[in-house]
């Protein structure tokens, strides 16, 4: 008990109670384990970044939280605890109560999440009326307000999705995701298809909204440079496992996993000296036939036969419980 009190003293005031906790979550597509026993917690009002390459399982995590996995995907084990309640195995009617109202999601391709033959207004109204008993007029009014919140003129309510630019469509989707005041927003590569300027606008808007409304965010992307700027805490995923987790500043200042360091070294600098960079050699593993031991060992510059090729490292505290790492030979801080 004393230990607990001691530890809670170390936690900054901004860290509030745990909103969502994944406990040993595993997801399988047939024989393939896309997510392999992941533990991850998001506090209320926190922005948690989840980074990794294509196919590492990061999008699967978002889809699993909402339980909108496409077959043959299925939860193969573990719990998704949202405000103290396990969502795994809940009947569909109860899940519908949680989806969108409590946990909303923005997908990468806004074009495919909007109905191309329906006006923006009608899509908003449909969404409101699926969840709340409100009049059409009131729903339209709320929709107009939401559009203005994300910086789109309310006249555009009458537009069809193709009449809006990619950035505007993505903002419409974000407005819809926030419509019911969710406590958790899942963002799956929300700006990847957009150029830097539009990306910057959207992120800034999201950050302002998040500050005002206080929702928590799970931000999923392969662009680590974006996450370091935007998140409070970052988890790095490789081949279905979390391999490192720390506060954003800490992760940027001293990445301890060779994979994290490799991701960091994949961005050419905009200023300073320019040298030839190598990035991360090789390709992500084939999940049908994952490597033995540490899954990163075939691409790892620091891997040794013993134990890296044989033993999978467990996630453990590096030197504070806030910096977790799954590596036999964490990098030394320079």
């Amino acid at each position, binding site marked *: 008990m004393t230990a607990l009190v001691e530890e809670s003293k170390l936690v900054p005031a901004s860290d509030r109670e745990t909103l969502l906790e994944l406990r040993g979550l595993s997801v399988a597509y047939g024989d393939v384990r896309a997510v392999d026993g992941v533990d991850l917690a998001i506090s209320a009002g926190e922005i948690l970044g989840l980074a990794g390459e294509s196919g590492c399982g990061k999008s699967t995590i978002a889809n699993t939280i909402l339980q909108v996995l496409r077959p043959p995907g299925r939860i193969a084990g573990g719990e998704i605890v949202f405000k103290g309640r396990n969502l795994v195995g809940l009947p569909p009617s109860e899940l519908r109560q949680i989806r969108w109202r409590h946990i909303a999601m923005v997908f990468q391709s806004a074009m495919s999440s909007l109905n191309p033959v329906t006006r923006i207004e009608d899509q908003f109204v449909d969404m409101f009326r699926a969840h709340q008993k409100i009049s059409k007029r009131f729903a339209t009014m709320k929709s107009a307000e939401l559009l203005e919140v994300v910086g789109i003129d309310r006249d555009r309510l009458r537009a069809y999705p193709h009449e809006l630019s990619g950035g505007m469509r993505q903002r419409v989707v974000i407005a819809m995701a926030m419509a019911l005041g969710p406590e958790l927003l899942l963002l799956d590569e929300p700006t990847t298809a957009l150029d830097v300027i539009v990306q910057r606008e959207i992120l800034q808007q999201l950050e302002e909204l998040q500050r005002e409304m206080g929702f928590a965010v799970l931000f999923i992307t392969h662009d680590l440079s974006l996450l370091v700027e935007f998140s409070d805490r970052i988890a790095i995923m490789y081949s279905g496992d979390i391999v490192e987790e720390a506060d954003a500043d800490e992760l940027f200042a001293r990445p301890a996993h060779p994979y994290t360091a490799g991701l960091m070294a994949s961005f050419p600098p*905009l200023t300073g000296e320019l040298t*030839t960079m190598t990035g991360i050699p090789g390709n992500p593993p084939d999940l049908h036939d994952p490597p033995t031991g540490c899954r990163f060992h075939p691409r790892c510059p620091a891997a040794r036969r013993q134990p890296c090729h044989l033993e999978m490292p467990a996630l453990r505290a590096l030197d504070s419980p806030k910096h977790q790492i799954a590596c036999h030979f964490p990098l030394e801080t320079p």
Partner: protein
Amino acid sequence: MSAVSISRPVLEARSLSRSFSIGTSFWGARKALRAVDDVNLSLRRGTVTALVGESGSGKSTVARLLGQLYEPTEGRILLEDEDMTGIRNRRLLLEYRSQVQLIFQDPFASLNPVKSVGHHLARPLRIHRVVPNDQVDARVQQLLETVGLVPAAAVARKYPHELSGGQRQRVAIARALAVQPKVVLADEPISMLDVSIRLGILNLVRELKEREQIAFLYITHDLASARYVADEVHVMYRGRIVEHGPTEAVLQSPLHAYTKLLLTAVPQPDSGLNTTFWQGRTGETAALAAHGWDPDVPTSLVEERPGHYVRREGTPG
């Protein structure tokens, strides 16, 4: 082949413009959109020229004009000093395409899913009769090795779905190289790839520039990658070049407000989300207005520093 001096452009755009008829536009008023407006561009051997700007700035239209997928409304395209504007003759067009190749953004869409990698590379070799038929297979393998896809023989038998995004983009590059072009126009070749494999493609571009002496046009909205590969940068805004010059000059000491804006939009892990400086669209308009940006006011590119040009108000003297 004549010995070409390094400074002489291989492919040149002179006062290139292209308008699209758009009926009633998004804002209701204009009927034609000037997507590319008076663009001058010189691509040189062994040089990477970056064309940067946001979506809708007209940079992809420039690539399509240079690739002769679109015809320019005004202006000329010169390939080694020869006017190639609007060539229709099939034989000439084929010859042009064997010198000027395009690589597109989406490596998933640019390969045929039911054809093997070998087929994709053998086809241009046969169409353009690059090598005798009995040497096609050997050449295919050589091309795959050039772009780092080994073992080449095994890769040639694979189908696009068996490859990762980065590998597919390498196949697209190998296909472009098959006809031994002098110019490669690469339109956002890495923006759909994972961050971790982007560097591989960028390093390949650097290597091909040196080894094959290809003139590259590298189109992107990612300034950091432009800095990494390009010798020269042209910044495009609303169809016009607003600034151009040597890469380091443009990116380290930008002169135009729009270039500065682009630079601040790049994610910078060490600086944090810079909300005070970045003011989005309204800020952009204000910043550009402060620099006298008004589409109706005549402007021209002036050389403010050696080789470093910026668009300013006024017509050339």
